């Protein structure tokens, strides 16, 4: 009790010095409060985005690894993904849902593909078409129509994203008759096709085997001609067809080179990616397949927030290190000034532990008062500081994007599909002060007390009372 009383007397009698220590701790607390609030709220928003947008995992061939190993072992062969494999991988506790798609490119004799080149005016003296081989009628292995079969049609991304919608009939399901097909409205209109009509398809390289498909649905899709490199007919959304997996399996049986199967898995928790990867490897996924996820895509709009969140953490570390050094130096000077007092207390029997405890208690009281004021001030300042930082960050992206546009010749440049515009970025981060942050701040204050108190410990342990008093006398 007397130690507390003595500590209080000392706090009161050294107002100037203690006020300086208090201000330093308060500044550190305010900065830490702002930094921690931004970091916590930013990370929370990022986590919430990750949770809202399920982590999508896919497998793709690791071409680098293939090239490296192929040069060493010419007999190397990579086992293809099969529907059975995918179902096996999808049957995991980490997976909330999965699907796979088969794709094939076929041609037809009784219907004509929508040719995008016909829509555009040809330049004069253009004879490119004369030089290019015809892409119809089986002269190229690329067919006119792209056929896709979903293991679970509810995952059809054109429809889930709203880029496509059924205008007549219904979307294909695997419960439909196996020869059902859904075609585009443009294709239907070009060929006077209706629900119930039948179309005949064949592999471009094998015209002997044909497949009769019955139209059960017609969809309308947004024009995506900008994605269609060289206007390849089958890549046009107008020539897209959806069929059942049963039909697709029949078609693929006659393929010289079976087309790829693509799979996507949705994880229950984004943190389970590593565990899921380990599990699929254990279940036999070839090392030549790499496991990729869409985290970057999900978090693209949060880039400025991620940046200020990371910056705030760096800032916190810097301010803590600098603050701790300043406090340690001030406390060292403080303890040297109080050498005589320490000598007297030790000479009349106060133990080293109690002297150290009193010195640390004084710091603790100052730090606690500064912590309360600093936390309150930090709470008030967090939101405006965050808004300003975020605004600056987005402005810097805006300038960067503007520069990129100018490099491409001006405002007409839209950029690639994933090119972010300033309006795409999340420009609002609501900062809140949570109990966890307050506890962390309290931890920061205590850390500062311990660091600066450490100077007291070293000093009091080093000197004997007799020496202190003799030197003074």
């Amino acid at each position, binding site marked *: 009790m*007397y130690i507390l009383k003595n500590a209080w007397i000392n706090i009161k009698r050294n107002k100037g010095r203690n006020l300086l220590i208090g201000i330093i701790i308060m500044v550190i607390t305010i900065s830490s409060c702002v930094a921690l609030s931004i970091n916590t709220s930013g990370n929370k928003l990022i986590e919430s985005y990750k949770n809202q947008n399920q982590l999508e995992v896919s497998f793709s061939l690791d071409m680098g690894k293939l090239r490296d190993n192929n040069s060493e072992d010419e007999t190397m062969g990579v086992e293809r993904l099969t529907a059975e494999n995918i179902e096996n991988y999808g049957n995991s506790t980490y997976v909330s849902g999965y699907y796979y798609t088969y794709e094939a490119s076929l041609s037809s004799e009784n219907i004509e593909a929508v040719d995008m080149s016909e829509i555009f005016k040809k330049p004069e003296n253009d004879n490119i078409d004369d030089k290019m081989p015809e892409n119809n009628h089986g002269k190229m292995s690329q067919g006119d129509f792209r056929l896709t079969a979903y293991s679970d049609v509810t995952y059809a991304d054109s429809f889930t994203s709203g880029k496509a919608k059924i205008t007549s009939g219904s979307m294909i399901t695997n419960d439909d008759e196996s020869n059902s097909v859904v075609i585009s409205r443009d294709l239907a209109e070009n060929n006077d096709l209706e629900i119930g009509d039948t179309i005949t398809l064949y592999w471009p390289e094998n015209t002997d085997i044909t497949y009769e498909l019955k139209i059960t649905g017609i969809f309308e899709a947004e024009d995506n001609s900008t994605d269609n490199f060289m206007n390849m007919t089958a890549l046009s959304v107008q020539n897209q067809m959806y069929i059942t997996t049963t039909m697709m399996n029949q078609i693929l049986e006659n393929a010289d080179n079976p087309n790829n199967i693509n799979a996507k898995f949705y994880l229950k928790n984004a943190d389970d990616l590593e565990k899921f990867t380990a599990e699929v490897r254990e279940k036999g996924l070839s090392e030549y397949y790499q496991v990729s996820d869409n985290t970057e895509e999900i978090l693209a709009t949060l880039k400025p927030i991620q940046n200020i969140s990371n910056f705030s953490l760096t800032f916190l570390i810097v301010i803590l290190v600098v603050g701790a050094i300043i406090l340690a130096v001030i406390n060292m000077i403080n303890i040297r000034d109080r050498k005589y007092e320490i000598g*007297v207390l030790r000479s009349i029997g*106060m133990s080293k532990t109690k002297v150290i405890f009193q010195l640390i208690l004084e710091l603790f009281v100052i730090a606690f008062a500064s912590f309360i004021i600093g936390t309150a001030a930090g709470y008030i300042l967090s939101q405006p500081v965050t808004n300003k930082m975020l605004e600056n960050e987005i402005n810097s992206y805006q300038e960067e994007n503007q520069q990129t546009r100018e490099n491409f010749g001006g405002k007409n440049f839209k950029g690639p599909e994933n090119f972010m515009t300033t309006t795409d970025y999340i420009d609002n981060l609501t900062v809140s002060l949570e109990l966890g942050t307050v506890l962390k701040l309290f931890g920061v204050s205590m850390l500062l007390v311990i660091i600066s108190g450490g100077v007291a410990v070293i000093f009091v342990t080093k000197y004997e009372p007799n020496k202190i008093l003799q030197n003074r006398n």
Partner: protein
Amino acid sequence: MKILKLKHVNFTYDHEKYVLEDINLEFKPGKIYGVFGRSGAGKSTLLSLMAGLEKCQEGLILYNDKDLAKMNRDYYRCHNVGIVFQSYNLLPYLTALENVVLSMDISGLKDKDKETKALAYLNKVGIDASKANRKILTLSGGEQQRVSIARALAYNPEIILADEPTGNLDKETEAEILDIFTTLAHKDKKCVIIISHSKNVKDKVDIVHYLKKGKIELS
């Protein structure tokens, strides 16, 4: 009964030259002892050893037959021995009364009314209530030394060690302070050991020891 014994005590600061060499002394309660010698004779070092401010390097210092080197010297200083310094060594930011009470607190005294008791000690050494509540630096040298004695008495130790207690005082005050020590020894049965080179002190003490170049000379 001997309360404090020094047996073949040697002490050096630099491990080359002994400041104290083969010191053998014994002290009893109820007596006032004087240790005299010229400057540099080792008087203050001897007091530091007896007060537990320095650790005995060679030989034995026994307090009630217990080896001081094996005792908790902090405890010893705030329970068994009261120290009076030449330069008082009081805390200037406290009042006279607070200095005495602090000493009681450090010793762990459980007395409920420490202030009344501290005031009684201060009165005993000639400090009245009005002066007791004044800050140390507003008191004269003699008054500060009285407060220092009161602080040394605060936890009722058996031994009072005084290092040149009258070195900074005028003759009249010196006599008054020495009277207090005499009373403490003869009336209160304390063992009072005064380190000094003052002739006035020598006249007041019961037993005199001379220290010359770190060795005790027969008186």
